[in-house]
């Protein structure tokens, strides 16, 4: 058993390295800016969903308010950059740090709540954040912040001519989120989280400090999501509260993980690889009419996938593997 586990982990790491290498070569073949754009978004959502999965998948604390951390990442970076001239690289880390601290501060009262009460509390807190930013004059209120163009440079993490640097950063972020998950999965934290998810009382009685392990998951998850938010802000060069803190982001972070397989290592990547291109393509090919057909198609697919594969797309792979094992 132990040997199998170790072998599986090694295999996961090798697969990830191969996939990352292949993805890194993709821009050699894909010259179309529109497709590159989709690739960047796909990688970004894979990273976000992977981070969301740490708290909601592994630790079982379903959050539908992660847009708050995404927005905090974006706003911290851009406020520091436009008001104080702090480079986005530092802003990004600051945003991540602030998001992690806020996540722990909120976790203190939130983690006492269970089930629906917890989920609604996460939605509500993100909504409060959204309303506050919409009314915060200094931060641009509802109009948001336009990031001034200072020419392409890695130093300022700003590129107007090409999308490639964004692509590589998104890829790196995705790899980072995956690697953190991979590493945590086999750490004592990973085992704690799964115990907390399955049966908090039993975990507590066996000496897992349930509260602290939830806090740890929240902090890591929020930190990574905020980095994603900072990236998104630089990528768009414009942010406003609705476009970085809206409820749809909370859902878009959760969806890939749920469709791919919640609480699994590969679920978020798989889910994002299918969901995000599908979203973008339906939007641009049949959404142009403004008549809602894209919504109908998109919504129907979500209903069908979640009904047909409650354990996510990953379950397709593990099912065939299980068959192989019994043979």
């Amino acid at each position: 058993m132990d040997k199998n586990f170790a072998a599986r982990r090694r295999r996961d790491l090798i697969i990830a390295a191969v996939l990352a290498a292949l993805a890194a070569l993709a821009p050699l073949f894909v010259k179309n800016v529109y497709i590159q754009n989709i690739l960047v978004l796909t990688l970004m959502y894979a990273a976000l969903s992977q981070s969301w999965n740490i708290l909601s998948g592994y630790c079982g604390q379903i959050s539908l308010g992660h847009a708050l951390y995404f927005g905090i990442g974006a706003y911290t970076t851009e406020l520091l950059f436009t008001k104080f001239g702090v480079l986005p690289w530092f802003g990004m880390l600051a945003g991540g740090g602030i998001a992690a601290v806020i996540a722990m501060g909120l976790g203190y009262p939130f983690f006492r709540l269970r089930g629906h009460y917890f989920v609604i509390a996460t939605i509500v807190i993100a909504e409060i954040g959204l309303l506050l930013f919409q009314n915060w004059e200094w931060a641009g209120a509802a109009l948001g912040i336009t990031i001034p163009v200072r020419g392409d440079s890695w130093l300022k993490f700003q590129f107007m001519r090409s999308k490639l640097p964004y692509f590589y950063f998104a890829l790196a972020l995705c790899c980072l989120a995956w690697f953190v998950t991979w590493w945590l999965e086999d750490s004592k934290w990973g085992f704690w989280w799964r115990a907390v998810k399955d049966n908090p009382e039993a975990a507590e009685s066996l000496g897992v400090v349930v509260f602290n392990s939830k806090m740890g998951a929240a902090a890591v998850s929020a930190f990574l999501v905020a980095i994603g938010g900072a990236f998104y802000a630089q990528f768009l060069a414009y942010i406003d509260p609705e476009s970085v803190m809206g409820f749809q982001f909370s859902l878009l972070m959760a969806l890939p993980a749920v469709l791919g397989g919640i609480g699994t290592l590969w679920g978020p990547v798989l889910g994002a690889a299918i969901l995000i291109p599908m979203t973008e393509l339906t939007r641009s090919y049949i959404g142009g009419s403004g008549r809602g057909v894209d919504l109908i198609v998109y919504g129907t697919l979500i209903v069908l996938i979640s009904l047909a594969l409650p354990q996510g797309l990953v379950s397709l792979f593990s099912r065939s593997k299980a068959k192989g094992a019994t043979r």
Partner: protein
Amino acid sequence: MGLLYGLIAVGLALIFGLMDVTNFAHGEFLMIAMYASFFLFAFFAIDPLLSAPLVAAAMFVFGAVVYLLIVRFAMRAKANAGMVQIFTTFGLAIVMRGLAQLFFTPDYRSIPQSWLGGKTVSIAGIFLPEPQLVGALVSIAAFAGLYFFIHRTDFGRALEATREDPGAVALVGIDKNRVFAFGWGLGAALVGLAGAIMAVFFYIYPDVGASFALIAYVTVALGGFGSVFGAFAGGIIVGLVEAVTALMLPPSLKSVGIYAVYLLVVFIRPRGLFGSM
């Protein structure tokens, strides 16, 4: 206004609170009820007040069909049942919004003249707009009806028993799907009633449901899951808090007060005010 929130929330209290099924399409149920009432007015000149029972009946069928066609299967999921429910009903909400855009166009519509629109009554020197007043009365009646229904009839007991233990219920000969389909129908009919009344004084557009759905969730959770009276009390509190916040903060921040009160309440009472679950 609080009683109106209560009226929207009462249907959700039944589906979400009593049957413990997450319905993210509740706002969209409200939206199509408002459209139904609008079209009955536009084509047949039936006043929303008269068409309200019609709309409620149609919504009853709609709710039961949604349960039988979709939700039934979502509840069957062995793993991640909660997430499956969230995302199937969320997908349904998106489809409904898309369909509304396709067939009804994204334009804002309103019912220009109705028996109630724009009139006010004066009670002891306080002027109250008539539609809201009727809404409040309907809301009280709906709550009283539902309360009676859940606590005094066989069906109400069957509903609670089914949530508690579907297996045992099947043993005594109650068909779980029939009970829940009826519950979903009833929940949808109640939100249909809310939609018919709100159509008189709110703009009707495909995304209208989204703005009320979150408040309806907060209302139900504030009152506590599993309690009809809780949802009623939650509605009144939400309405009062909104009115008070609107006096103290700019109008764009009026919902902040509601959300803050929700957080405060659940921090002190993690199961809501009157919750039993």
